């Protein structure tokens, strides 16, 4: 690649410098501060001196253990069962709050599974963090195809020559124009459990068969509701990116495809999609990054509830750093998030690079 024509240290640095300097000053330096906080007991509000604590904040977040609990037995050694025939186990608190097991002190049950008569219980130092971690991943896994694919469909739909297409383009983009905070406020009315708009619409469409669902109040629907709303809000944003990518495909390629009698699908598969490769990487990465930063929707709509069903990493980082004045704990979460996402994006880059030659 390096030819004499493009080799230019001076100009290269000079052109990149303003941008690189501002990023270093206003993003990298604060982040390094945050990294330092995460190794101390820094509080947001406190007269006490700050102390270096090493990796304690990380241990408090990441501590995990598996304990095996034997069922309760009666005098004859028979396993005790409750009314439903389920095996009765001693409560986890008898272990985590017992002086006999100081290593498990303060830990809580995350989830459990049964193995024979025994129950294996995964306990964590910070169950809320673990749930936030899991939810964040679930959110990312669903939102990436939903938003990226949906946006591509919209972009193809809107990229046709029809009278009035501009009006539709504008309408699809409208939710992006409104702040996500505002959108979240509006959707609280829509998702209302008893007489919300969504329940009413579904009720009318099903001729009264549909029973109202408390979308944000149930642990099994809350995260899904937020995923759908988030996809809906930002899909227009990515539609615009896809559209700008579509413009870079030379029209001659389409002409050739038309002459050769390619079907719509073939044209897409062999002309459009290969031409969108760089755009696809962009969209994929941007959605992933934004998804990992999920915060506003949670803050406005559920505050992480019900029962931590919508906890996310950034929400927890903010809740701790500001709400609970524990800036070191909050910073530790953001550092973990950073390295996790970095690992993922390096993998993503590795995989997309391979496909190019494969």
């Amino acid at each position: 690649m390096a030819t004499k024509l493009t080799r230019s240290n001076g100009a290269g640095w000079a052109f990149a410098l303003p941008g690189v300097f501002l990023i270093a000053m206003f993003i990298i330096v604060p982040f390094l501060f945050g990294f330092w906080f995460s190794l101390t007991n820094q509080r947001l509000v406190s007269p006490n001196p700050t102390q270096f604590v090493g990796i304690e904040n990380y241990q408090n977040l990441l501590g995990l253990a598996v304990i095996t609990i034997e069922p309760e037995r009666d005098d004859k050694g028979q396993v005790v069962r409750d009314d439903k025939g389920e095996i009765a186990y001693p409560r986890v608190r008898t272990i985590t709050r017992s002086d006999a097991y100081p290593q498990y002190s303060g830990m809580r049950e995350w989830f459990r599974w049964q193995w024979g008569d025994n129950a294996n219980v995964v306990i964590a130092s910070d169950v809320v963090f673990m749930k936030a971690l899991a939810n964040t991943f679930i959110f990312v896994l669903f939102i990436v195809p939903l938003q990226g694919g949906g946006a591509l469909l919209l972009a193809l739909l809107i990229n046709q020559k029809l009278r009035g297409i501009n009006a539709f383009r504008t309408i699809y983009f409208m939710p992006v124009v409104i702040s996500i905070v505002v959108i979240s406020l509006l959707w609280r009315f829509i998702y209302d459990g008893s007489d919300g708009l969504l329940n009413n619409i579904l009720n009318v469409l099903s001729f009264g068969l549909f029973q109202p669902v408390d979308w944000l109040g149930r642990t099994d629907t809350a995260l899904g509701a937020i995923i759908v709303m988030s996809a809906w809000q930002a899909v227009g944003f990515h539609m615009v990116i896809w559209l700008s990518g579509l413009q870079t495909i030379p029209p001659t390629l389409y002409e050739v495809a038309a002459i050769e009698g390619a079907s719509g699908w073939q044209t897409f598969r062999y002309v459009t999609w290969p031409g969108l490769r760089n755009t696809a990487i962009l969209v994929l990465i941007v959605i992933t990054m934004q998804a990992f930063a999920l915060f506003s929707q949670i803050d406005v709509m559920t505050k992480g509830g019900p029962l931590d069903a919508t906890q996310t990493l950034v929400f927890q980082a903010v809740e701790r750093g500001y709400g609970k004045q524990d800036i070191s704990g909050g910073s530790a979460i953001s550092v973990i998030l950073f390295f996790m996402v970095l690992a993922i994006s390096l993998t993503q880059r590795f995989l997309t690079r391979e496909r190019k030659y494969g």
Partner: protein
Amino acid sequence: MKKLTIITSALLIGTALGGPALAQTELSMWYHGAGNEVEGKLIGQIVSDFNASQSDWTVVVESFPQESYNDSVTAAALAGNLPDILDMDGPNMPNWAWAGYVQPLPIDEAKVASFLPGTKGIWDGQLYSIGLWDAAVALYARKSTLDELGLRVPTLDAPWTGEEFMAALDAAKASGKYEYAFDLGMNDMGEWYPYAFSPFLQSFGGDIVDRSTYKTAEGALNGDAALAFGAWWQKLFAEGYAPGTSESPADQTNGFIDGSFAFQWNGNWRAVATMAEVDDVMFLPAPDFGNGNKIGGGSWQFGVSATSDNPEGAAAFIEFAIQDTYLAAFSDAIGLVPSTPSAAQLTENYKEGGPLAVFFGLSNEQALLRPVTPGYVVQAKVFTKALADIANGADVADTLDAAVDEIDADIQKNDGYGH
């Protein structure tokens, strides 16, 4: 960049020319009521009266939206940019005093002797802040509902017992007339939870933290009394007496007024608006679950920042502001409880026989401050989450244990918060 400099500089000059030169010393003051026109006017009135009343000081007010006020103050403190006078929510004061944001109020305590207990911010034996009003919570009900369901009217001297209260909810539920028997405003997951709900816990005999030492929550928040409270709390939602955390804001605002709820646990700041809509609304005292009937006390109060160069000027303003006429004016305008009995007599609603007079009694006799400790800020968050989780079906004992662990760990991390 040059263009930018010119723009900002031009604007700076513009604002500098706007203010006249002043001989008096300027005192800056922050207030949490941006967007609240009525409060804004009243504060403006007090400030201009004060500025006109003497020639040493000029107070200049900056108002902030309430929901983010604490964040603004914390950020300003971090950046070393606090004003001379600031107002603060009562339970936050110990945190700010401990952190050195505010200094003891140089006001003679005799001047505030007649003030309601909830309006005085005392930390470490010293007065740090003083409020122009207190807020109170009551059980909203209709006279007609009580008559129809055949319920006696509870009073401060003879409140409903826990059983009577549950019987009232059962009767309301059985009547089939209401969507919910009771509304608690569960969607407001902020300071409302500890303010409105921790008195229930206290009435059961528990507390957010052990107030004898403020070093642990063990026993207070997960003892037998707390477990009984938790079981009762969970039942309210599990058995459909009250809407849960996902309640829509629309229902919370309109539900009692349009008759969907038989009873509502609500603040007196809603009283004036509700009276306008519901002719026979009654404000009933909290039920007694065994350890007395209690409500939360402590609302917004004024204090002096630790970095103020002119604490005597700041104190002079605060002393000026706590005159009965202003207390009464605030109460008349926004319906809050005036801080002194003499001011109460000047008001429309709280004078003897006034429609809200019951709230003055509530504040004076039932009000219990939220834990007076710098750790309250964290404890309030933990308590809020625990109550939301229990309402959503989490195991009561496990949830309260976890809350205790988190509170205790936080107290330890902060070297006991100076207790």
